[in-house]
């Protein structure tokens, strides 16, 4: 799965470059997040601004990714597009994550950097 990772001193930004996180992509997504976050020890922001479709399998994979990082390293979200936002709202999972408009907004606040 196409993703990029940028590591700053106190935050890692993971940008998903695919349009879909669905049943086909879910396992690959989890494996790639595991690989990209293996080295760091900071909180992470998952930038979903290029993703226009997440279904329940994709949502499950994002929750799994959050668990992979462990309780000391929160996973936040940024850039939710309309359908993705709807999935998080209807399943109430929007309460489980901190959600920022953009990764830049997350970088500007200290809120993202601590658990």
């Amino acid at each position, binding site marked *: 799965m196409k993703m990029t990772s940028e590591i700053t001193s106190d935050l890692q930004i993971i940008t998903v470059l695919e349009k*879909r996180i*669905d*049943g*086909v992509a879910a396992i690959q997504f989890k494996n790639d997040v595991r690989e990209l976050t293996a080295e760091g020890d900071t909180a992470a922001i998952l930038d979903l601004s290029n993703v226009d*479709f997440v*279904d*329940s*399998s994709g*949502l*499950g*994979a994002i*929750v*799994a990714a*959050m*668990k992979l990082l462990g*309780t000391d390293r929160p996973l936040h979200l940024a850039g939710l597009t*309309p*359908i993705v936002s*709807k*999935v998080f709202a*209807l*399943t*109430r*999972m929007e*309460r*489980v994550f901190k959600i920022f408009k953009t990764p830049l907004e997350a970088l500007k606040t200290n809120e993202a950097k601590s658990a």
Partner: protein
Amino acid sequence: MPEGASVDRVHSFSGLHRTPSICLTFPATQNAVRSALASITPSLRTLCADEAMVGTAELVLAEATNNIVEHAYVEVDDGTITLSCFKEPGRIGFVIKDRGKNFPNYEIPPKKNHDLNAEPNALPEGGFGWGLIRDLTTSLEYRRINGQSILRFSIPSTTP
């Protein structure tokens, strides 16, 4: 409706008396579901210039058809899914058919009420599908007719 119900009622429920705007049969695999959705969403956009509604339809169709792949055909590797769409005033009607296992008790599964205050490691990674389908559709109905599962629902337009 019990198995072997009258032909007229069967045809009425499964939409056979109407000509669908779109009808597609595809293999019951996750990759085929993805391809089917990719081919159907542009057609939905042509039927109804309502981007929010098309997005909702894509999500509901993904949930309903992936459920068939993962549950109805769990023991079958050559199953097929047939999807029909009907343009109706203010909404699009959908009929999805498969020949896999029926729902337990012939009932559409309920919306699961997950405990989201649970500690992070206990948070759910699945079981969201039927809640999404129930939240986003109207006239959701299920029938098992002559060994075929028929799921029917409508998605309303978001614009008047």
